[in-house]
């Protein structure tokens, strides 16, 4: 049992708009941290800039609310320099995927052992409502008064494109779902990307409407669980099956289909083909996938750095500055 409660991770009075999804997420994160049981003083929460990036101010941990887009790079240095710390990196969709896109993909590729939270409200909240790289094509915003003319990133796809080994999704208002995902992210050694579907009540109200309420999720979401068949629907009446290189929704009981015929979720599968298909599912034809979609072990950068240092220490004969000097060609002046 953890010696901490959520209260041990709380600080100050959140300043987000009433109803903002960030409030819900914060509460779940604090609960998850309490359950995980790592001390607040061994935890660093590092964010960029954005409404969502204000989060570290409300945590009783070590934290940094840094500059726009650089949270992943800063968190990388933090973890590599001090691997004993548990590092959480928090960004919005703009912070993480617009200006911070390069650090996002490289942190995934290097597989830094940290939890990368992406609070995706598909809008720039803090700057009062411009479209973001996750806003849908045609989205009307202050900076796109006639609608955008570009497709959005799909975070899971970009994460996988960058060789990410962990991807999970939760809805901000879904406390149990969020807590489960946070715990799984922490349990995963390596870069863990968690997309949080978060509603900006002011500038993008309703963007995640289909799954934002518990009823919505019952209808429109599927909770993936490793080793479990892919069943969903208000009465667990639907399932997912493979079709060619794709997926199809089936009704259990119809056409002789039983639970046995359904795909079983394998989050640990090295090949991410199916995981990607699951992550990309959208309404109205498919449910939105929630939970841990991919969770594959792989060597982490920070572990490897440490191991290499140990290894070289064993092999080389110089271990301090004076010894280093003597590895050079020197001469004596008498």
């Amino acid at each position, binding site marked *: 049992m953890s010696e901490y409660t959520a209260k041990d991770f709380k600080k*100050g009075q959140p300043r987000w708009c009433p109803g903002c999804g960030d409030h819900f997420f914060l509460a779940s994160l604090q609960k998850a941290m309490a359950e995980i049981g790592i*001390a*607040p*003083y*061994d*935890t*660093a929460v*590092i964010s960029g*800039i954005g409404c969502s990036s204000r989060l*570290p*101010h409300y*945590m*009783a*941990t*070590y*934290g*940094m*609310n*840094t*500059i726009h887009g*650089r949270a992943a*790079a*800063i*968190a*990388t*240095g*933090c*973890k*590599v*320099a*001090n691997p*004993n*710390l548990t590092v959480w990196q928090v960004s919005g969709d703009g912070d993480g995927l617009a200006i911070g896109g*390069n*650090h996002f993909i*490289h942190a995934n590729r290097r597989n830094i052992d940290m939890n990368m939270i992406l609070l995706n409200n598909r809008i720039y909240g803090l700057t009062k409502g411009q479209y973001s790289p996750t806003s849908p094509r045609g989205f009307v915003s202050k900076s796109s008064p006639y609608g955008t003319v570009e497709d959005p990133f799909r975070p899971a796809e970009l994460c996988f494109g960058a060789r990410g080994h962990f991807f999970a999704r939760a809805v901000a208002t879904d406390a149990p779902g969020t807590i489960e995902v946070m715990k799984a992210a922490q349990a995963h050694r390596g870069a863990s990307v968690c997309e949080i579907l978060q509603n900006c009540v002011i500038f993008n109200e309703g963007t995640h409407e289909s799954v934002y309420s518990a009823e919505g999720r019952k209808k429109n979401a599927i909770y993936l669980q490793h080793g479990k068949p892919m069943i969903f629907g208000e009465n667990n009446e639907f399932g997912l099956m493979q079709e060619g290189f794709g997926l199809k929704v089936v009704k259990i009981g119809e056409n002789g289909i039983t639970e046995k015929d359904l795909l079983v979720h394998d989050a640990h599968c090295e090949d991410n083909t199916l995981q990607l298909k699951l992550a990309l599912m959208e309404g109205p034809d498919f449910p939105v996938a929630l939970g841990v979609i991919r969770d594959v072990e792989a060597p982490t950068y920070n572990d490897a*750095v440490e191991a*290499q*240092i140990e*290894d*070289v*220490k064993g*092999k*080389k*004969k*110089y*271990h*301090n*500055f*004076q010894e*280093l*000097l003597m590895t*050079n*060609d*020197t*001469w*004596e*002046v*008498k």
Partner: protein
Amino acid sequence: MTKNASVVDLDQVVVRFSGDSGDGMQLAGNIFSTISATVGNDICTFPDYPADIRAPQGSLTGVSGFQVHIGADKVFTPGDKCDVLVAMNPAALKTQYKFCKPTAAIIIDTDCFQEADLKKADFKTLNAIEEMGIKNDVIAAPITQMVKDCLADSGMDNKAILKCRNMFALGLVCWLFNRDLTVAANMLKEKFAKKPGVAESNIKVIQAGYDYGHNTHSSVSHTYTVDTKGVKDKGTFMDINGNKATAYGLIAAAEKAGLKLYLGSYPITPATDVLHELAKHKSLGVTTVQCEDEIAGCASAIGASFAGALACTSTSGPGISLKSEAMNLAVIMELPLVVLDVQRGGPATGLPTKSEQTDLLQCLFGRNGESPIPVITATSPTDCFDSAYMACKMALEHMTPVVLMTDAFIANGSAAWKLPKLEDYPAINPPYVTPEMKETWAPYQRNAEGSRYWAIPGTEGFTHILGGLEKDNKTGDISTNPENHDLMTHLRQEKINKIQVPDVEVMGDADNAELLIVGFGGTFGHLHAAMDEMRAAGKKVALAHFKYINPLPKNTASVLKKYKKVVVAEQNLGQFAGWLRMKVDNFAPYQFNEVKGQPFAVSEMVTAFTEIYNK
């Protein structure tokens, strides 16, 4: 030209090795420098790389040069012009001849002055020497052929054999200066420890070159010795270039401070060698992260600093532009960070392999808002060590980013360095929080020097948040209070203003100079040499060379106002002069500016300064 060479004793001599990029001139030059240093001469070197990786073989743009200045006494520069030029091919002769003194001896490989070779270097006739109107002594040796002969039985293939040409030239030069070859042999044995055959061949070829000179007495008027009579510092020495010295300085400071050294970096000429050097020393626990770009290099270093490491990021001018936003974050968060700028030619990509001093104002001012950062500029290859050490100490003790500036010239140039003892260096004491402070501490509480305390994650009782938004002057909570912002702006500025730096020293005729030369950073050697030359000519001249730029030494104004005439000499359009004008009332100096990507020429400066002197 006479065939009868006598031995002439010199106080100092400049030798320039030049050839195609693939000809190994840097190695030959390095060995010659070390041999000379070993016998007790002072040395100062300047590798002059071509800009292109590998221009067409034998072409004018592919010439690589290495110049070394050897002195009985202290030498300050690699020398304006050389006494001996090695030119391994026509392109080298054509492009490097301008570095020759009128009296210089020239060594060429006649086997490489054939029709095809000459054409590649745009010669029109078959006699390069005549075509260029060269009247100097020329040692024209069939080097290629002799190397081939010498290694005929070595079992090496032709390509490998040709790679030894540089050693023949080196042997010849060693003969010319009556140098003992033992040191060279030892160096080669170490360098090729894993390939004893190669070492052997190289040594054989050096000896052959030496013998060739000796036996033929070649075509020079005399050979030389450079005395070692100068008053010498005693001790153990090595030859070190500025980049390596910088890396060593960082390592030394980390060890002294008892912290892990972290470098976040992205490759860029001419700074990359610092990354290379540090990456080697994992046995000292050094962590180097080659990041996706410069921004990440700086950002990750900030993360590492927060996490409790001695954090550095290394780059050149364009990288500073990119890092500036993150550097500013370190300013407002008040975290220690050393930012290394090895300056090169600008603007933009500019002249990546060339040297200048044009980043000064960028380092001082290139950030939004009032963003004071200390700036230290190293003055010589060996001073890079001390400067790096002091930059770390300053960053850690004052909880601030510090910019350490060097330049391509001192970064690649080398000199003899007396091995330091870490115990002789000042202690480094960051203002850590102490357990007793637990109850009362706040993240932006300050000590007597105006620095906030360092609470490293993992420490119980000190959890806190830092950030890029303006914050309350005690609690660190986000604050938009106007008075608080004004106060914080001043607190950050005063913290830097209050940092203690040594007074600037006045060299030369400190008491009665008619002209004060003022400079900063990597031009020290050249300015000193110019001063020496003018004083030798009976002029009253002094030099005030600055290493600490921000804050400036306390005695700056009094030094600058003490002399009738002041000239600020720098490799830019007047950035340091501008900074001094901002800081010192009614200071309107003469200026000497050159932006050529090349080291100053001492002779040109002497002419210019003398003109000012005589005004």
